[in-house]
C-alpha cells in the first residue's frame, strides 16, 4: 500500500522516543488518543436516568395484589446515568475494540468476512424486526416465505434433501445433527455408543458428542494432515453411531478420501456428520451432499456473512439426506400453493426429535443470510470460494520460509503455520500474535488445531484485497526478522493497544466475574 501519510512502515522499539513518534506498523498501526472508562456501575449519581417513559395511566399498586415477600424495591446496584453518559460509555468501549470494520481479521476457522451493511438495514425493517414469533400465518407470510426460500437455497448449496433452520449456532447444529443420527440409529434398534472424531476437529465436535451421550473416539490424522480410510476402518465397528468430519478440515486441507471413508462408515451402519464451518471453501465448487455426508451444519455467521457480534448471535442450520428428514426438529416451513405456514405440531411429524430452540431460530440472521445469497447469486457464491482459497494460498506463499509450515499439503481457504522457527529465539506463537496488534492486524487463531504445536491458523476470507494481504505478509515477516534481531521486543508486545498483555492466570486464580460495590482489581 502506498504510504503518503509521511511515515515509513516499521516498528517501534518499546515506546515512543523523545525525538518523535515511532514508525507505524505494516498495517498502519500507531498510537493515538484513547479514553479510560470505568464500569457503568462505577459512575452516575442517585436519581439520574437515561430513559423517558410514559405515565402508567393507572394507579395500580403492586403491593395490593402481590404477596409482600414477592415484591422487591428498586434493584440495588443498578447504575444511574443520563443518556449522554451512556452514549459516551459505549462509544468509548467500542473504540477499544477491533472488528472487521477496523482492519484485517484473519481469525482462522471463523471466516471473518465483510458483513454487508445493507443486510443490517434489511434486518431492521419493522416487518422483520417487529414480528412476534406467534403471529398467525396470515400475518407473517413475508418472513415465512423468506425462511422457506432460505431453506431451499441452503439445501441446494450443500446438496441435501432438507434443512432445519432452528439451531442457534454451529455447535448447536452439531448437537442437533447428532440427535438426528441417534434418532435414526434408535429407529434401527440401537442408538450405538461411539462417535469417531479426528484429532484435527474443533472442540465443539467432541463436546457435542458427549452432550449427546456418545463416547468420543479420537482418530489420528495422517502426516499429510488428512484422515486416512485405514484409520477409520480400524476404528469403525457396530458400536459406532457416526463419524464427524470437517471438510476441508481445520488445517484447511480437503479430506480427499472422504468418499472411501464414508463408504466404510456406511458399510458398518454408521452415518457421516459433516462440520460445515468451513463451507466457505466449497461454495459452488463442491457439495458435502455429493461427498458421502449424511448431515451437515452451516454456520450462517461465517459462510453467509452475518455479523459475529462480539461472540454471537450465530445461526447453525442443519441439512440432511432424505433418510434423516423424518426426524428433523420442528418447526419446518411448508409451502401450500402460494401460502406458507409453520409445521410445528408433532402430530404432523410423529418421528421428529422434537425441538432444539424456542420458537423458530435466529430469524434475524436468516434475513441477512438470505440477503447475502440473493446479492451474490450462483456466480457470486462460487466466486466467494475461489477468492477465499486464492487469498489463503497467496498468504501461504508469502509466508513460506519466514514461518514453518507443518503440513505442506495443498490447502484451501485457510493455512496453518507454527512457531518452530521462532522457538529458537524462544519467541512463541502468542508473542507473534500480540506483536501483530502493534502492526495493525488482528492475530490469527492461535494454538488450534491441536495437532499443530503453536499453530498460527490464518483465514483471510474473500473480502480482503491483495494490498491488505501484502501488508499482512510484510508484518509477519517483519516480526520473524525482529524475533531474530530483538526477541525481547516481540515478547514485550503489544505496546500500542490501550492495554498491554493481560494476566489471564490471575483472572482464573482469583476470579472476579462481576462488579461489586467498591470492587478493586490491582
Amino acid at each position, binding site marked *: 500500500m502506498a504510504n503518503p501519510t509521511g511515515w515509513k512502515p516499521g516498528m517501534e522499539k518499546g515506546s515512543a522516543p523523545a525525538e518523535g513518534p515511532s514508525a507505524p506498523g505494516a498495517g498502519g498501526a500507531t498510537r493515538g488518543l484513547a479514553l479510560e472508562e470505568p464500569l457503568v456501575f462505577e459512575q452516575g449519581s442517585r436519581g439520574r436516568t437515561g430513559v423517558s417513559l*410514559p405515565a402508567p395511566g393507572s394507579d395500580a399498586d403492586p403491593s395490593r395484589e402481590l404477596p409482600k415477600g414477592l415484591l422487591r424495591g428498586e434493584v440495588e446496584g443498578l447504575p444511574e446515568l443520563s443518556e449522554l453518559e451512556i452514549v459516551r460509555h459505549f462509544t468509548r468501549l467500542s473504540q477499544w475494540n477491533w472488528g472487521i470494520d477496523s482492519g484485517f481479521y484473519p481469525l482462522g476457522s471463523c471466516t471473518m468476512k465483510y458483513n454487508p451493511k445493507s443486510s443490517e438495514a*434489511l434486518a431492521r425493517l419493522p416487518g422483520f424486526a417487529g414480528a412476534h414469533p406467534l403471529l398467525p400465518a396470515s400475518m407473517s407470510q413475508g418472513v415465512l416465505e423468506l425462511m422457506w426460500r432460505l431453506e431451499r437455497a441452503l439445501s441446494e448449496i450443500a446438496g441435501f434433501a432438507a434443512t432445519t433452520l432452528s439451531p442457534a449456532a454451529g455447535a*448447536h447444529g452439531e448437537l442437533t445433527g447428532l440427535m438426528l443420527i441417534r434418532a435414526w440409529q434408535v429407529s434401527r434398534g440401537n442408538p450405538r455408543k461411539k462417535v469417531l472424531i479426528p484429532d484435527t476437529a474443533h472442540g465443539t465436535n467432541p463436546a457435542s458428542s458427549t452432550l449427546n451421550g456418545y463416547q468420543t473416539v479420537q482418530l489420528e490424522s495422517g502426516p499429510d494432515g488428512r484422515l486416512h480410510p485405514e484409520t477409520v476402518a480400524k476404528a469403525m465397528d457396530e458400536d459406532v453411531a457416526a463419524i464427524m468430519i470437517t471438510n476441508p478440515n481445520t488445517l484447511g486441507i480437503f479430506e480427499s478420501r472422504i468418499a472411501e471413508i464414508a463408504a466404510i462408515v456406511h458399510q458398518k451402519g454408521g452415518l457421516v456428520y459433516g462440520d460445515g464451518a468451513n463451507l466457505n471453501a466449497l461454495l459452488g465448487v463442491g457439495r458435502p451432499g455429493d461427498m458421502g455426508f449424511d448431515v451437515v451444519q452451516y454456520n450462517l455467521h461465517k459462510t453467509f456473512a452475518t455479523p459475529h457480534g462480539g461472540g454471537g448471535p450465530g445461526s447453525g442450520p442443519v441439512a440432511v439426506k432424505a433418510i434423516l428428514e423424518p426426524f428433523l426438529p420442528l418447526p419446518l416451513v411448508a409451502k401450500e400453493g402460494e401460502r406458507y405456514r409453520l409445521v410445528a405440531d408433532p402430530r404432523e411429524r410423529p418421528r421428529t426429535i422434537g425441538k432444539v430452540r424456542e420458537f423458530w431460530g*435466529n430469524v434475524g440472521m436468516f434475513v441477512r443470510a438470505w440477503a447475502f445469497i440473493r446479492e451474490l447469486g450462483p456466480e457470486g457464491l462460487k466466486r466467494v470460494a475461489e477468492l477465499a482459497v486464492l487469498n489463503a494460498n497467496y498468504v501461504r506463499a508469502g509466508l513460506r520460509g519466514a514461518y514453518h509450515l507443518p503440513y505442506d499439503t495443498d490447502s484451501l481457504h485457510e493455512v496453518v503455520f507454527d512457531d518452530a522457527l521462532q522457538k529458537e529465539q524462544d519467541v512463541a506463537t502468542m508473542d507473534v500474535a500480540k506483536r501483530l496488534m502493534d502492526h495493525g492486524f488482528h492475530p490469527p487463531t492461535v494454538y488450534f488445531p491441536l495437532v499443530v504445536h503453536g499453530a498460527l491458523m490464518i483465514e483471510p476470507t474473500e473480502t480482503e484485497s491483495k494490498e491488505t494481504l501484502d501488508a499482512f505478509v510484510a508484518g509477519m515477516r517483519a516480526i520473524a526478522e525482529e524475533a531474530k534481531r530483538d526477541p525481547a521486543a516481540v515478547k514485550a508486545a503489544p505496546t500500542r493497544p490501550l492495554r498491554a498483555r493481560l494476566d489471564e492466570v490471575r483472572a482464573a486464580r482469583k476470579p472476579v466475574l462481576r462488579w461489586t460495590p467498591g470492587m478493586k*482489581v490491582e
Partner: protein
Amino acid sequence: MRYHPHTPEDVRAMLDAVGLKSLDELFRSIPEPLRLRRPLDVPPAADEIALLSEFRALAARNQVEHPPFMGAGCYPHHVPPVVDQLLLRGEFFTAYTPYQPEISQGTLQGLFEWQTFVCLLTGLDVANASMYDGATATAEAALMAARVTDRKKIVVGAAVHPEYRKVLATYLASTGDEIATVPYGQDGRTDLAALEKAVDGKTAAVIVGYPNFFGVVDALPEAAALARKAGALTVSVTSEAVALGLLQAPGALGADVAVGTMQSFGNPMSFGGPVPGFFATREGNVRQMPGRIAGATVDKHGRRGFVLTLSTREQHIRREKATSNICTNSGLTALAATIHLSLLGKKGLDQLARLNFARGRLLREAMRKAGFGLRFSGPTFNEMAFEVGEAEAVVERLARRGLAAGAPLSRWYPDDPRMKGALLCAATEVHAPELIELFAQSVRG
C-alpha cells in the same frame, strides 16, 4: 462485485505468486467426482436496489402496524433508538469472541457489565456471557444440576414455558436423564402437593417459571424449599425479565440457578430470535457453568482489564470433557440488553416494571368490562390468560383486522379441557390505554 476487491490483474498476479494457472486449479485437491460442475440452482444475483425492494415487499407482508397483545415468551417492548445506534458501531458488531483481550476490551467490559446486570436482577452470584435462548439455557441448567448433584431426575412444572420444556425433553432424550412433569393448579401456579410427591432423593433439579408461562408469579419460594429439603437445585425460569424489576430476585427466594432471556431489554422480537439467553447461579457452581465468562484482571502495568476466563470448563480446552458444547453465543443481543439496562438504570427499571404491571391491570380491567374473566386466579405481572370462548376463532377474527390477539393455550395444552377457551395476552408500555380499550372491544367483536 462490491464485496470482492479482486481485479483481474490482482487475480493473475496472485495466481502467479501461488504458481497456478487458473482459479480452478486451486481446488485440485478435490477429486473430480466430488466437484460441482454446474452453477448452483439459486436465484440470479440482485443489485442493491432490487434487493431492498424485494425485502421491503417481503417485510410488508408481515403485519406489524399494531403491537401484538401477546408475549408467551417474546415481548413487545419499546427499544430506545439510541440502543441500536450504539450497537451499529462496527467495532462491536463486526468483532468476534474476544480471544485477544488487548484489542477486545470493549466487548469484554460490555460482557462483564452484562454479567453484573444478570446477577443484580437474579440475585445470584455469577452469570455467563449469554446462552442461545431461554429454552437451551433451561436445558443446560438441568444438565448442570445433574452434574452438580450427580442425580438424573429433573422435576419441571407444567406451567414452565412449553417450548422450553420441549427443548429440555429433546436435549435429555440423548443423555438418559429423566423428566417428571408436575401439574399446575386453578391459580395457575405449580401444584405444590404434587411437587412434593415428585421431588425425591433422585431429583437433581426443580424447574419453575417466574413468572411462569401463564404470566402467573409462581410459588418459587415454596418450590425452592421443597427442592432444598431433597438436596436438589432450584432453577427459576424467566422470559419476561422486566418482571424482575418488580418481583423479588429469584436468588433471594431460594433459586440456585436462574435462566431465561433478556429479550425484553434492548432487543426487537425479530420473529423470536436472536435473543440474549441468560444463565446465573451460585458461586459454588461456577466451574460447572456452561458458556463463556468474562473476568477482571490487570495488564502488565497493573491497569485493570478484562479477559475470558475459567475456560478450562469449555470445549476448546476440554473438548469431550467440557461442561457444554456452546461456542458462539448471543453476544450482541446481550450487549443490546446491557445498553438498555444501563439507560434504564435503577429508577428507569423500577418505573418500567411498575408501568408494565399497571398496563396489565388496564388490560385485565378492559377485558373484564368486555366480559372476559381470568383463566387463573394467581398473581400476575403484565401477562395473563383470559376466558374468551373460542380462542382460535378470536385470534383469526382479530388477525383479519391486523391485530395479534394473543396465544390460545390449547395449542400447548391440548389435553387440558380448562384450556379450551384460554387466550394468553400481554400488555406492556407500548400498549397505550386507548389501544388496550380498543383491543378488548375487538375481542368481544
